[in-house]
């Protein structure tokens, strides 16, 4: 067994020095001051051993020899000095023993840290981690890019008081067209080629796939009196042959704000706020008069091309490919709600005003992320999905 007082390697001592194995009487200690100097001697011995450079194994040997439960020096001292002490010495032995014990523990703890850092410094290159190797990557999924854009837009409008509602994709001609002031044979219907469902004979109404999210303007106003502030994210359908810029299914966000006192200035202010949040504060906006049967005045909304900074010139010279040199990009159509629409939902057109807009999400995502083929959104190739974590 290891003992600081037994012969160990170069620290060999004569067995006559192995004082903790003997009793106090044996050592001729009869007075308290003798006790103190005896403990001082032991302590000095420990300090000299502990002051040598230690690696972890030698620290462990040191600890065992002093604090080991079965034959460490402290255990021996307890057995041979304290328990066997005469009553008049017991108190001072006890005190000295406690002091010694505290000193050993503190010093050993400190020396353990020193030993550890010595070990850390001396590990071999072989053991060292290669940080250029990958860690363990747990597979994590992702939101679809279209969903991310939806979320971003919803959050912006939500922050200025727009609630989110949803509606059916299978609609009636009434909601998709008529109540939006688009009667049958209206020229605008020619621009919205429509899918119809094959229904059994005797169906009350034809059903179609909504060509825009605008039917929810009507459904919302039917259910709710002003003030109304909603956005409607969703899928819409037009019977166009698919190519790089057309898909017969795509995504829109409709917006509608109706109240007693909403003006064109509120409308443009809202749209500008949205665009600056979405594209950044330096983007410029403009409104061009346009025509939609369910808004009046109607506008097309343009932003200064965010790719060339509205110059029309690409950074490397030459024409900007995104705006084709026009410096502006057409984003979406909007306008003040046409009073004729209020007639369909029993609002008083004289006391009501508001605005509506319809944002094409796919186009916006293509613009913002430089995607040149709308079909990639729907192919769902994992190599595409991975690009937008």
């Amino acid at each position, binding site marked *: 067994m290891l003992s600081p007082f037994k012969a160990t390697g170069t620290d060999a001592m004569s067995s006559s020095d192995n004082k903790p194995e003997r009793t106090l009487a044996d050592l001729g200690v009869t007075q308290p001051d003798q006790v103190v100097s005896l403990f001082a001697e032991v302590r000095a011995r420990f300090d000299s051993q502990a002051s040598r450079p230690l690696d972890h194994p030698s620290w462990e040997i040191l600890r065992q020899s002093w604090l080991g439960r079965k034959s460490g020096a402290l255990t021996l001292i307890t057995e041979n000095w304290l328990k066997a002490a005469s009553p008049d010495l017991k108190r001072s032995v006890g005190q000295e023993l406690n002091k010694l014990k505290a000193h050993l523990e503190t010093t050993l703890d400190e020396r353990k840290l020193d030993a550890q850092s010595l070990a850390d410094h001396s590990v071999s290159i072989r053991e060292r981690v290669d940080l250029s190797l990958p860690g363990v990557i747990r597979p994590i999924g992702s939101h679809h890019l279209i969903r991310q854009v939806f979320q971003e837009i919803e959050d912006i409008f939500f922050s200025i008081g727009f609630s989110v509602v949803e509606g059916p994709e299978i609609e009636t001609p009434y909601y998709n067209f008529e109540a939006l002031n688009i009667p049958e044979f209206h020229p605008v219907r020619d621009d919205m080629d429509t899918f119809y469902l094959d229904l059994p004979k005797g169906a009350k109404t034809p059903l179609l796939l909504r060509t825009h999210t605008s039917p929810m303007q009507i459904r919302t106003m039917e259910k709710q009196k002003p003030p109304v502030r909603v956005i409607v994210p969703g899928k819409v359908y037009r019977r166009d*042959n698919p190519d790089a810029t057309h898909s017969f299914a795509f995504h829109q966000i409709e917006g509608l704000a109706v109240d007693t006192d909403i003006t064109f200035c509120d409308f443009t202010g*809202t749209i500008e706020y949205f665009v600056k949040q979405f594209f950044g504060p330096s983007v410029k906006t403009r409104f061009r008069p346009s025509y939609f049967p369910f808004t009046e005045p109607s506008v*097309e909304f343009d932003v200064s091309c965010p790719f060339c900074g509205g110059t029309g010139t690409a950074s490397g010279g030459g024409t900007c490919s995104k705006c084709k040199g026009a410096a502006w990009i057409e984003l979406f159509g909007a306008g003040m709600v046409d009073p004729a629409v209020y007639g369909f939902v029993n609002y008083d057109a004289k006391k009501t005003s508001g605005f509506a807009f319809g944002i094409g999400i796919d186009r916006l995502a293509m613009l913002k992320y430089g995607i040149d083929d709308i079909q990639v959104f729907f192919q769902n190739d994992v190599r595409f999905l991975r690009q937008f974590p």
Partner: protein
Amino acid sequence: MKVVYNWLKDFVDVAASPQELASRLALSGTNIGGVENGAHGAVIEAEVSSNRPDCLGHHGIAREAAAIYKLPLKHVSPKPVEGQAKAGDAVKVEIQSPELCGRFTARVMRNVKIQPSPKWLKDRLEASGVASISNVVDVSNYVMLELGHPLHTFDYDKVRDHKIVVRRAKPGEKMRTLDGIERQLDSNICMISDGDGSRAVGIGGIMGGGETEISFSTKNVLIECAWFEPVAIRRAARFLKLHTEASTRFGRGADPEMAEIASRRAAELILQLAGGELLAGVVDIYPGKRAAKTMRVTRAEILRVMGAEVPDKEVEASLGALGFAPVRIDQNRGAEGSLLAAWECTQPSWRADVEREIDLIEEIARIYGLHKFPPRLPAARQGAARLPHYEAETRLRERLIGLGYREILTIPHVAEERDALFRPEGITPARLSNPLSEEANVLRSTGTVTMAAALEWNLNHGQRNARLFEIGRHYRLNGSESFETRVLTIGATGEAREKGLYDSARDFSLADLKGDLDSIGELCGGFRWADGGAEWLHAARRGAVRLNTIISSEARNLSSLGVAGQLARRVAERLKLRQDVFLAELEIDAFYDTVRIAKNPRRYEPLPRFPSVERDFSVLLADGTKFSDVTKTIQSLGIGEIHSIEATDLFRGKSVPAGKYSLLVRVTFQSREATLTEAQINDFSGRIVGALGKQLGAQLRAQ
């Protein structure tokens, strides 16, 4: 509409460059497709919106430019020299269907010389993208492009009895149009016929016929310039699938007053280019003549709609330039900027689209400039709400993404036969009556059909490992009613864990799918699994997913959420999916409701103060005995200190006899009152072993 810059200058003296003019037009409502510099000068491509037929001619665009730049517009008042003989003696016109044809004018010219057009005319037509044919035909095209009003020229001598009859098409009537196609008509179509009306010589407002066409031998010409009812024209053009320059202009609403002016303009040009004699006067049958509408616009309404002032003189200048002849009619007239200001306006014949105060306001605003109305962000009056299931869906997405699933979005149009592979019995799919192709002729009746297609795409593009989800809808019919149901669809194939530096590869299995679904189920108080599932799933590897918590009697029917499992090999074969594919589809609304409801009653459970103790039981069970039998048996002992029962290992073969399997069951004991003693644990263990042996015939294996 191609706008030839130099042509425009015939009517308005614009100094602005073509580019600048184009951008000003764009900002006042004429959409511009581009500006090109061609052999005949600049040409502006104007994309005129369908409510503005007046801008389908140079004169109309010139009016816009005049209003924008506050310049005078030159009016069109042709004064061709007329001969002695009267047109009224040379031609008769009868309108039998005034509801389709509101005006018909006829002029007659004698002894014209049909020849090629002069260079200036050819150039302007060429710049406009119109081919030159002969002077008389070119004039009719020229006048249409100039004044926006279509006209038609007949060989006068080929018109029987020199009489025109305008009537509805007869039942079963057919006619061969100028393009050589024989067309089946219907009785809502307006026909131009001659003589006694039995022979059709043209489809009114859409296209003429070949029999009375102008040729190089024509000597006498009949000029038709009419006005047709717009809705009837649009209907007819769509019915005939015949869209022409004329049908576009009449279909959007031409100017009835312009009919006679355009006719005069054509006569003037024909005289100039083809000589001959113009008979005096015009035969003008005008049953559709209407008095001009008047309407008012007030400053109060301008303010209410637009939110900012427009000065009096700007209101008057813009409306005046556009032909609305505004007159102040309020008490305060003379007072600049009065809040009571009101103007009475007269609708010009070329602006049928403007008939309400709001229409006038739009006119004022677009000419004044939309950028002059200062944007401001209005205050919200009420709190905003997310969708009711927003939080539940957000948490669902978080989990799925954390579990490694990527979100997809699909187009619901699929081939009927593919849809049928996944469609539950008794379900009617939503078929399209006008699909683009047979590959996309129904709306998916399940989410799995498009999920399978997404996995197929990835496998076909070398992407063998995919874990995908979609939150979308499936579509079904019940009679003539449609139902859209929100569904979560999950699809996985390939490796659950790919080979890497630290791990070996492991294929995705049903256990992965079940575990992932149960991680989702945790949000709603857990899923219950039952045998069953869809036909298209592998018979031994499928199950039905149910809600554990039944939230209301109404929701009890919805407690079945959907199915999950491995795609049956026979279906995988059909879809050419050459590796195992796992699919699940859940109707998600009941899940969302339960997530919401499960959250509220959740309460904190104090953490135990005493240590728990685990005991493992290695038991031999007969095949067919389920883990749930084991847990039920143990739970039936009613030992309150049982905290959990887990299966920690399962194996067959080797030392395990056939027909049996070995299951390692770990039971954790926990008391809230005290540290459990060795004696208590031994007692519990003994009762567990006894029950498993007695009820399930389980043998305890040496550990």
